């Protein structure tokens, strides 16, 4: 049972993969656009976790800088994305992604 008491980088990578997959499941399954958006944040977070796990493994601090930039981009993305949902709610009174069909018909 050494895998239970000895935490290696692999543990973090598996955890990041699981979190990323949960985010994907949310994006695929949920209709509510805000939840889809939160799931995307979760996926970004899982990617960050891999970066930091490898930073510790290889002793490279550059990965921390990359994570810093990912967070900046996530903040920008959240601001613009939520603004889009506010505008969409004003127009169509819904945030469900499969009801945004104006360009479809």
């Amino acid at each position: 049972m050494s895998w239970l008491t000895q935490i290696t980088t692999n543990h973090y990578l598996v955890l990041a993969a699981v979190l990323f997959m949960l985010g994907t499941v949310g994006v695929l399954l949920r209709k509510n656009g805000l939840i889809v958006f939160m799931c995307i944040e979760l996926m970004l977070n899982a990617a960050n976790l891999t970066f930091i796990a490898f930073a510790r493994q290889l002793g490279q601090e550059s990965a921390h800088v990359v994570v810093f930039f990912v967070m900046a981009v996530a903040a920008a993305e959240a601001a613009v994305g939520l603004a889009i949902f506010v505008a969409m709610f004003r127009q169509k009174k819904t945030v469900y992604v499969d009801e945004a069909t104006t360009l479809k018909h």
Partner: protein
Amino acid sequence: MEALMFWILALVAVAMAVMMIFHKNPISSALSLIVVLFCTAGLYVILDATFLAVIQVMVYAGAIMVLFVFVIMLLNLRREELGLRRHKAVKVIGVLFCIALLAQLVAIVSTALPAVAEISADFGTIEHIAWLLFTKYMLAFQAAAILLLAAVVGAVVIAKRRI
């Protein structure tokens, strides 16, 4: 001790992520995501990324999630049935992603990583990160600043009724 902390944080993070996906109330989903982000911040501390752990709590769990909760309340979403999509494409993509995850896990377990590097006591402190940011990654730092400015202006333009 480290192992115990890892397992607690990891299990709470996964459980809360599942709750986030399958909860009916968007506010509950947002709060679950905040717990996930806090757990990840704890993992960052275990991985000696102290500065990023603080930033994670402040920027992610603080600013971004407040924005989410604020918008959910602003839109006044009523509590509804769990809107799950039943679409053929979803199944296909889901199967593809399952295969991708399996391949990823096999790749992780089968690859031998180099030995864990020796790090100095001040690994991942704000001083080191700032040194890298203002020397090697100066251009990217400036670009991120411009990106954030553009995002702020864009968000106001999109969300405002009349400029």
